[in-house]
């Protein structure tokens, strides 16, 4: 019998599908709802030290084959998030919980990591690539090699035994090079890719940008080829497990990311297009693929496209 279970570094997921950060990730109850629909792991909304309301609306806009968003890192703060993580873990013992985090400074990344680590998430995912807060926080840290190295090393130190993933985008320089910096400074995994852009939409009646932040990150099926290419590059650059995401809406899409080098696959925007049943549908599609090809599990095709 083929199995969907995957080994992601030291972690074991019952399904390779991961709820991406930013989607239904604020409360234990919403995360539990997704867990019950077939995700192997769920990721919290990126969490900072203090509560944050994010940008005013509009924050999320549908576009052809995708979404443009600038939510602005709204989150309940690290202490409140720890309560949600603990509640989730007691309610959903078989689904892994990944805690996404960000900081306004290098030091703050370490502080948030230390706070969240106390709640014992299964993984810390370090968001150094949010494209939607640069007017306030400057360029994302992934764009600055020295800071990227420092954040990786600091979070790794504060995380104790908890594995650390760095979440990268393709927006600020060569992703393979950024992944190498993360690897050299102790990262256990790479998550790729964050939303693309930033982009902008203008309303032609009021003649101004629609997003309150003016610009936002693009996600959804329209970025899938960019994600496939980026994961391919990361796989060539570093020998770390990859959580691949970007526009996945079917098992076929998920397999492309896996063959480019991803071990686990994030799903986010497709929840909007296809609803929460998507996780189960993609799981079934992956099982069919394994059966058709006579494979035991997905590790046999991870990175297969590299030959």
């Amino acid at each position, binding site marked *: 019998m083929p199995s969907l279970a995957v080994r992601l570094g030291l972690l074991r997921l019952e399904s390779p599908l991961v709820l991406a950060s930013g*989607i239904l990730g*604020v409360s234990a*109850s919403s*995360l539990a709802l997704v867990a019950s629909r077939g995700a192997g792991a769920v990721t919290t909304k990126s969490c900072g030290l203090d509560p944050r309301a994010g940008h005013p609306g509009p924050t999320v*806009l549908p576009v052809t084959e995708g979404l443009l968003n600038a*939510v602005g890192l*709204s989150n309940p703060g690290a202490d409140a998030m720890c309560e949600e993580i603990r509640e989730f873990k007691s309610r959903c013992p078989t689904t892994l919980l990944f805690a996404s985090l960000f900081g306004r400074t290098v030091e703050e990344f370490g502080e948030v990591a230390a706070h969240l680590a106390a709640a014992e998430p299964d993984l810390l995912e370090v968001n150094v690539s949010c494209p939607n807060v640069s007017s306030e926080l400057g360029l994302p840290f992934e764009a600055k090699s020295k800071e990227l190295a420092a954040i990786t090393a600091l979070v790794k130190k504060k995380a104790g035994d908890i594995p650390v993933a760095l979440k990268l985008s393709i927006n600020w320089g060569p992703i393979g090079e950024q992944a190498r910096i993360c690897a050299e400074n102790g990262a256990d995994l790479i998550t790729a890719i964050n939303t693309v852009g930033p982009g902008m*939409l203008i309303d032609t009646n009021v003649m101004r940008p629609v997003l309150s932040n003016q610009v936002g990150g693009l996600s959804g099926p329209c970025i899938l080829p960019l994600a496939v290419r980026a994961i391919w590059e990361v796989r060539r650059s570093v020998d770390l497990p990859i959580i691949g995401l970007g526009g996945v809406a079917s098992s076929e899409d998920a397999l492309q990311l896996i063959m480019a080098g991803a071990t686990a696959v994030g799903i986010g925007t497709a929840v909007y297009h296809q609803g929460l049943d998507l996780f189960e549908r993609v799981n079934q599609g992956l099982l069919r693929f394994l059966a058709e090809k006579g494979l035991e599990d997905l590790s046999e095709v991870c990175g297969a496209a590299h030959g």
Partner: protein
Amino acid sequence: MGDAMRTVRVKAIVEHGPGLKSFLLDGPIESAAPGQFVMLWLPGIDEKPFSISDLGEAGLEISVKAVGPFTRALMEVSVGDYLGIRGPFGKGFRLADRTLLVGGGIGVAPLRFLYREMGRLRLSAWLVVGVRTAADLIFPDYFRSLPDCLIVSEDGSIGETGIVTDVIDRIIDQAGTTRLAAAGPEPMLVALRDLGERRGLKVELDLERYMKCGIGLCGLCCVDGSGVRLCVEGPVLSSAELRGVTDLGRPHRDATGRRRCGPD
């Protein structure tokens, strides 16, 4: 795509009282179910969810009470200005015969739409409208003109003196209603749910939570417990769905996603 932002002009504005207005918009929605909501964008300010208070050939009507910075800014909007609309979103009320509609304060808005829609379908409906004082009621002349509508106010300035829960038993006895549909402040909704279920009625409540995306992604409007998304599976929940809500009538989450402390 109904989910995309569409800007339309304000066609008419009705001022019901201080800080209480209804806006008639020129489109852009062709059909919606009573209880569904739209995201309303005031360019340069913010975007917030509002129930539809009527929808017909005249256009889309949204009734607004000024309670915060956004709704106060909306009070400054003039006829001819552009507002943005996304939606309609969510799941509305079930349209069924022998339903008692109960609205409190600005919560009357979606029930105005529901009552009209039920009338069009020739379904029997009774309406109870509760306000603190006469100045809090939208379209007072309209509601006074309805044969099956009872108005109550806390100070007796319009209709009977009292609150909606004082009169519900009486209406159920008189009208033989089998369903209850309610919108308004959550403590009132919880009391109505308890009362309705005690009388064997099928209950639907129109709940509110902080909403940001409106399309089931951000998670801020997920109720505690079942995690149900009010912007997709709600905002109208049935008795069975309400049993999965652990924060009903209790403090819920703010824009950061944090549970508020103290009473809501």
